[in-house]
């Protein structure tokens, strides 16, 4: 049955896949083409699908000197800001959620169930929903235009806790008991057994949260006003000046291409661990 499939059964899936890839890749390719053109070509609306010859020039200009629009910040610095934010959010989330999941799963303390459900309920309260109170608190604490103000409110969320809780519940009880017999207390058990076993889950969560942090728009827009704190997502927005032909599209496109690179890199580097973390059940 499987061996004797009609030729169309081989072609059709590839056709669909190819179409999907084209849909995703084409706009990215256009952005790349845009980043290689000179200002005149793009301003005249003569952009085709053939790359120009100004790629290096455009790139070095945005990276080091900054583009036009309402921002003067070099993109290199914006990349750094975004990188810091994404890293702090990803690592902060992993640390907080793995510890809280460890507490909820392995310790019998009063109101344990309540604690878990309170964490669970915050799933319904992403930053967008609680943006005014959160802004007020951050402002009152004097954390506007700081890395802390930018990252801490985004670190608090339940997704990671849930992921680790589910994973911890698959670790057999005997393993804890064996550790106890071997003289390992809660801290040793966490470091020696739980952490190594969670490595793939940590990788998966890191990828997801890095991209989540990198793509943040609304929160950084509110919380940062200084150019020196600007993230790249905000930067792109500021380069695009409304309506007028003032927008230097070739520079905006170059910035967009640059903005895509770090998340792609993270996914490519962590791909193997990431996939294992999402599907692995082997103990």
């Amino acid at each position: 049955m499987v061996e004797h499939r009609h030729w169309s059964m081989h072609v059709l899936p590839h056709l669909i896949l190819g179409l999907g890839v084209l849909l995703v890749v084409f706009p990215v390719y256009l952005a790349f083409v845009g980043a290689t053109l000179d200002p005149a070509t793009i301003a005249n609306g003569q952009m085709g699908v053939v790359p120009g010859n100004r790629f290096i020039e455009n790139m070095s200009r945005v990276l080091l000197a900054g583009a036009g629009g309402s921002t003067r910040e070099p993109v290199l610095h914006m990349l750094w800001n975004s990188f810091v934010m994404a890293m702090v959010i990803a690592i902060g989330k992993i640390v907080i959620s793995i510890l809280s999941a460890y507490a909820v799963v392995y310790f019998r303390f009063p109101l344990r169930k309540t604690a878990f459900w309170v964490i669970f309920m915050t799933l319904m309260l992403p930053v967008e929903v609680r943006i005014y109170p959160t802004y007020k608190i951050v402002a009152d604490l004097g954390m506007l235009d700081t890395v802390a103000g930018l990252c801490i409110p985004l670190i608090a969320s339940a997704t990671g806790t849930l992921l680790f809780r589910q994973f911890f519940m698959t670790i057999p009880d005997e393993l804890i008991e064996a550790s106890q017999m071997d003289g390992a207390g809660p801290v040793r058990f966490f470091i020696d057994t739980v952490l190594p076993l969670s490595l793939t889950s940590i990788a998966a969560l890191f990828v997801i949260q890095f991209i989540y942090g990198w793509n943040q728009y609304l929160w950084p827009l509110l919380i940062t006003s200084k150019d020196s704190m600007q993230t790249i997502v905000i930067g792109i927005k500021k380069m695009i000046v409304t309506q007028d032909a003032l927008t230097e599209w070739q520079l905006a496109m170059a910035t967009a291409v640059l903005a895509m690179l770090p998340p792609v890199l993270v996914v490519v580097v962590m791909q193997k661990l990431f996939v294992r973390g999402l599907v692995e059940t082997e103990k």
Partner: protein
Amino acid sequence: MADIRLDHVGKTYAGGFEAVRDLSLTVPDGCFCVLVGPSGCGKSTLLRMVAGLETITTGTVSLNAQVVNHLEPAQRDIAMVFQNYALYPHMRVYDNMAYGLRNRGVPEAEIASRVAHAAQILDLEDLLTRKPRALSGGQRQRVAMGRAIVRKPQVFLFDEPLSNLDAKLRVHMRVEIRKLQKALGVTSLYVTHDQTEAMTMADLLVVMNKGVIEQIGAPMEIYRTPMSVFVATFIGSPPMNILEATSLGDGVVSIEGHRLLIDQALSLPAGHKVKIGIRPEHLSVQADGFTIHVELVESLGAHQIIHATWGQQKLAMQVETDRVPAQSGQALVVGCAPQHLHVFDAQTGQRLLRDNAS
């Protein structure tokens, strides 16, 4: 080395379920004690209380005459082998064995020599750098054993360590475990629900049922004089036949209208309902016995088991192959020597004894 002493130990789980009730037991130094009983009778619970993995509701557990109720598992100087081995999946075999020693601050050189020694005893030398997932079931079992012996503990605890192995390996490992324990002389508590394992391995056999001890003794002693119908049918394979009977007085009982001579010293009053136990291996074909009707013959090679009926009651008989050319549907005249008859009270299920026969 140490002896284990349980004094009126009881365990009530959070839900109110009483898993172990007022249980007392002393395991002498160096003894291999086997706890056997049906599933859910509280064997694991008892073992885990000795290990310190489960709190003790009532009574005391002592090791070496020192009460350990309040001690953490690691402080009790006990090693445990789990049913699913509970090896650390991310550690190499070497580290699995070394882990407990490292946590105790044993110097690395000492650890290396102890692990090497254990690996040599257990034939694990070529596997030390592998992860558990790259081992077969039997090899994992040996690593779990190794993890226990490198610690040089006062007591070994085993919770059905062989139940995940195939039949052949199980027989092999049970001999290995027994040899090892003899060589090391470590007091051991071994839980199983397999009566063959229990009979073959135990110095001291403890038969449990519903959270209490039914009988304690040497395996052959329990085999020869089971103190209740439960023990009689649990120990021995195939299980003992239990037949309904009525006393006629003067050491005679009637089963299915047949008069059977029992121990006269029991002095049972006429009309008393009893249960007569006969082991399948004690039945034999003889001229002046009772008649049974063969239903099925199972051949085990050297032996065959004849399943038959005696009037309304079922009966099994084990004989050497070719001794009895039995076929289903056939009638056989069989009997049993009076000293091999076990007499139990029909109501309480307890063995009737000479001394306090009323």
